């Protein structure tokens, strides 16, 4: 399914806006303080995606360790088979929770892998924007400090 067809259901009122979105897009995932400096995840999502209501979904696949080997480099992977427009990663306990937003143009797989910093044990949430709605998967990553440092 072409995910632009999803937009058609938005109706005539928003036809103009839909047309805009459907144009070949240029880097939608641009950084903005408005989203990335927010202290609350919901505010960050609102400013990044224009929505903050989220629905947990088992179609959102979040891969992150149960116990981080090192909080400075925690591998995180988000993937979904849904028709995704965007992906975001939230790290709840970090000073500003929104860590990453990615724009997924047509033809690009809804997948992103990166490595994140986590200051302490935290909930990590993967957000997938699909059809204008936000779907999530969350898990707790334990961050331990102090061991055989060296």
């Amino acid at each position, binding site marked *: 399914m072409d995910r632009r067809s999803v937009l058609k259901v938005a109706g005539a009122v928003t036809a103009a806006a839909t047309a805009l979105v459907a144009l070949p897009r240029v880097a939608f995932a641009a950084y903005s303080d408005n989203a990335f400096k927010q202290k609350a995840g919901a505010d960050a999502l609102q400013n990044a995606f224009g929505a903050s209501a989220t629905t947990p979904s088992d179609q959102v696949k979040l891969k992150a360790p149960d116990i981080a080997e090192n909080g400075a480099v*925690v591998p995180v992977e988000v993937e979904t088979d849904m028709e995704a427009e965007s992906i975001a990663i939230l790290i709840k306990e970090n000073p500003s929770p929104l860590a990453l937003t990615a724009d997924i143009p047509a033809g690009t797989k809804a997948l992103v892998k990166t490595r994140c910093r986590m200051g302490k044990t935290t909930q990590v949430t993967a957000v997938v924007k699909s059809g204008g709605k936000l779907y999530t998967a969350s898990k707790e990553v334990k961050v331990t400090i*102090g061991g*055989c440092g060296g």
Partner: protein
Amino acid sequence: MKKIIRNVAFGLLGLSVSAASVAGPAEDRSAFQKFYENRFPDTPLEDFQNGVYSILPSAREQWEAIEEFPPYELAIERGEEIYKKTFANGKSLASCFGEDGAVREQYPHWNKERGMVMTMELAINECLEANGEKPLKYKKGAMADVSAYMSYNSRGQRINVEIPSDDPRALAAYEMGKEQFYTKRGQLNFACADCHMHTAGMMYRADTTSPALGHATSWPVFRSKWQSMGTLHRRFAGCHNNIRANPYKAQGEEYRNLEYFVSYMSNGLEYNGPAARK
């Protein structure tokens, strides 16, 4: 933690079968490798070269994610540059170690003429100095980068350290390394063998200790903790610091002999450095 220590103590009592060790290096090695095979029956011998990841599946997944694009690749690039750089006298490190420096399997080795253990890092500096260049610091930076380049080109070579029987000083160096490995040190009163043999795979505070079998295979290493590359002797020093023992000098006799012993114990495994560690 206290309980662990107590358990260790019991374990040790059980082990003290006969006090005197009359066995030679070959017997030592086979008992050493047997120990880990019995301790970690699910880990194939080959896999011990992957350190703690050979026994800890949850950490292994994260390690594999890091290995998708390991941070040491940048070190290999830097190392190649240093390796190929022309000295003031027109030569380069390649004049000492060949075009690609794939000589990892030659180290550590016993140098009979000089009566000492030679390591790759020591040989790199001796090459530099013999050609009128400034030596590098042993623990990190350029030395770790060059070593990373040479180790990378040597991947797949087998560890085959020899203790020549025609030179009693070689055996003495091996014995010194062995004693280092098994003696308790520092205020915390730990031997290498306590954490990395008899309680390998158990938790010390937030960390699981790695098996010593395979300890010498994967250097130099990019440690997330360091956020940089480091050599084996940097890690030795870090471990000693952890147990509150004053570390010895990198490339001093103590650590070279310890490297000699630890490498010999891992004979048969592959050199697979550089590597990423937590």
